């Protein structure tokens, strides 16, 4: 005899009624949430360790943007309150903090993260907790290519366009190169970005000789040996997707030993390091910004907004904003857009988690330089601008000239396709067709 069969009929009926009432109450609570006293946002970022060169500017930008939004009355009349979590202690700590913020602090939206590993750990949590999670800076292509995440949305580009755009620029600018060496950091981004680059390069320009694949350990402070080897090998092109202090050190040591005079460098993540390098960065090398937010963008969508953001950040923190600051601004702009959309769809009511997520899906939101659209799979399509490093009077550091803008949809793998598979299908025409030269430079 089963256990169900011995439950008295009256008890079962009472239980069913109670369960139904609970379900109804739950549905009602989710459908009609009260407008909260404050909109709590949890933000995971690097506050310590080497990646804090990105994480701290990201936090600074978040604080500045939240202050600005609160001065204007908040989002839907609700002021913002930020909670920061340090990514540096690792994913176990991060996952625990994510849960704590959502379940104990009652955070309504999470912004996660700088590290791709952190994002890969946080997106399953967004599924489980059904909590809208804005992927504000991480670049791994795996997030939306390996699964559906109905509550996760990336408000910027990702690894594939950020690597493909500089490659297309190289093929347009110096199509006759025959040999290439790579020197990337030895961790997920360094390895993944090389795989993406190599796949696309082998498709678009087969036969390039890869003379060295160097992956110095993460957080290295000395690249002397690698530089000696590259000097001896004399590759036509040297690719490095490194960032932060390591990129600054690599460039400085390479400049001191005249490596820039022997090879053309392609540096897809250079933008964030250029202010630290000042005049040291040699001219004429290919630089990217993980987006289109260059200070000297010749034709931004809203020049006044770009200037306002840069000036306010500089005034408050005494430094130029770098790409994590712009990515944070994109996350806030998307959040405002999604809430406005969700509130409007609900006739002025405060949205629940599902309604907020629906507000993000398919959202097009403005940035100072362009607009970004979040696809159905949750991936944002952000334009990429690549150019050649140059020095002028306006900035005490290198900025790009001869810029080419690559629209996000042209350099991103279509929804539902894996990047590596898609890159293998590229046709040579993409080199000339995907990008559009910007300005007179």
């Amino acid at each position, binding site marked *: 005899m089963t256990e169900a069969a011995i439950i008295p009929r009256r008890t079962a009926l009472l239980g069913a009624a109670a369960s139904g009432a609970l379900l109804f109450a739950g549905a009602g609570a989710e459908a009609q949430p009260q407008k909260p006293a404050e909109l709590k946002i949890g933000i995971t970022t690097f506050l*310590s*360790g*080497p990646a*804090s*060169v990105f*994480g*701290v*500017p990201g936090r600074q930008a978040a604080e500045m943007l939240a202050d600005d939004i609160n001065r204007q009355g908040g989002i839907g009349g609700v002021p913002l309150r930020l909670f920061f979590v340090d990514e540096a202690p690792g994913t176990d700590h991060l996952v625990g903090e994510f849960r704590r913020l959502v379940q104990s602090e009652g955070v309504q939206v999470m912004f996660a993260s700088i590290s791709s590993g952190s994002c890969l750990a946080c997106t399953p949590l967004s599924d489980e907790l059904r909590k809208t999670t804005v992927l504000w800076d991480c670049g791994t292509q795996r997030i939306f290519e390996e699964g559906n995440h109905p509550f996760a949305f990336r408000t910027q580009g990702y690894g594939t366009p950020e690597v493909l755009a500089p490659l297309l620029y190289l093929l347009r600018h110096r199509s006759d190169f025959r040999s290439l060496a790579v020197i990337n950091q*030895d961790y997920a981004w360094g390895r993944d970005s090389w795989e993406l680059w190599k796949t696309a390069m082998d498709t678009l320009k087969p036969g390039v000789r890869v003379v*060295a*694949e*160097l*992956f*110095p*350990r993460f*957080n*290295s*402070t*000395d690249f*002397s*040996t*690698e530089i*000696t*080897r590259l*000097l*001896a090998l*004399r590759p036509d092109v040297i690719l490095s997707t490194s960032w*932060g*202090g*390591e990129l*600054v*050190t690599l460039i*400085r*040591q390479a400049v*001191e*030993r*005249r490596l820039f005079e022997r090879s053309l460098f392609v540096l897809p993540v250079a933008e964030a*390091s250029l*202010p*630290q390098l000042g005049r040291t960065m040699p001219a004429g090398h290919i630089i990217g910004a993980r987006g289109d937010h260059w200070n000297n963008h010749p034709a931004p969508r809203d020049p006044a907004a770009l200037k306002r953001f840069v000036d306010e950040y500089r005034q408050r923190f005494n*430094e130029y904003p770098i790409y994590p600051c712009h990515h944070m601004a994109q996350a806030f702009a998307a959040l405002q857009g999604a809430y406005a959309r969700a509130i409007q769809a609900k006739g002025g009511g405060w949205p629940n988690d599902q309604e907020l997520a629906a507000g993000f899906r398919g959202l097009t939101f403005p940035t100072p330089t362009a607009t970004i659209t979040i696809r159905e799979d949750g991936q944002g399509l952000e334009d990429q601008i690549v150019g050649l490093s140059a020095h002028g009077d306006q900035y005490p550091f290198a900025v790009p000239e001869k810029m080419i803008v690559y629209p996000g949809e042209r350099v991103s793998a279509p929804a539902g396709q894996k990047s590596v598979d898609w890159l293998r299908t590229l046709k040579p025409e993409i080199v000339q067709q995907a990008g559009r030269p910007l300005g007179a430079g």
Partner: protein
Amino acid sequence: MFGWFEENGLLLGLALLDGLASAALIFLVAVGLNLVFGVLRVLNVAHGSLYAIGAYVAASLGIAFASGGLPPWASFAALVVAAALVGAVLGPAIEGLLLRRVYGQEQVLQLLVTFALFMILEDVQKLVWGVQPVHHDAGLRWLGTVDVPFGTDVIPFTAYQLFVLPGVAVLTLVGLAWFLRRTLTGRVIVAVTTDREAATAMGIDARRVYLLTFTFGAALAALGGALSSPTAALVPGIGAQTIVLSFAVVATAGLGQIEGAALTALLIGIGRSIAVYFEPELEVVVPYLIMVAVLLVRPQGLFGVVETRRV
């Protein structure tokens, strides 16, 4: 075999030059840690922080000297001043306020105390110098480069890398050996390292020796950091990777052995360079492969002395 050498001999030569400079920096940091460990028997995790602070102070002093109109060579003085400052200020403070309280305690407690200090000093670095890369290389640029022949080609090396780093390491090694063996204070330190009980029974003031050794070790860590500052961009976290490598050197060299530290640093520096040329994937594990290989043959370290356990 000979064919391989014929083909790669020039590359091996380049790897040796790179390895020497790398070994010099490793030695300078590890020898301080080894000295402190040998005398105080405390594994100081915060040694990496002293390295980082030495680097930051040297860069800041260099920038201050340059903005004060001093010539580029003055930045070399900044390196030495930074090491002395960090040693003199932080050394006695850490030894007197923290380490003195945990001598003879459980090693776990000692490790926790120095690890806590490491974390605190990491945050202090961020508070003082921020998170963006800091660098100053006026002295390095002033020295210029040296073209090393490579077949029909030449490979530019910085003179700083070829001469200054190995030179300072050799001077430090010789100076330390002379100090420890030829001066009274040095002999007292060696006596405490060899047999603390017997040394104190003979009337040696162990507290003074501990203070002096730790201050000296701190200054050496800071000197390593200061010397690395012209070549590297300084960011949060540089101390952490340094300390891990230094531990490997100390374990391989043997307790309190400065010549052992020098030889181990040389093995690691050259081993890593050769790996970059011929098997780059191995570069990260080379120090630990060397450590394991040495400890399998000589568990007490390259120059270590087998100790009898006292009951």
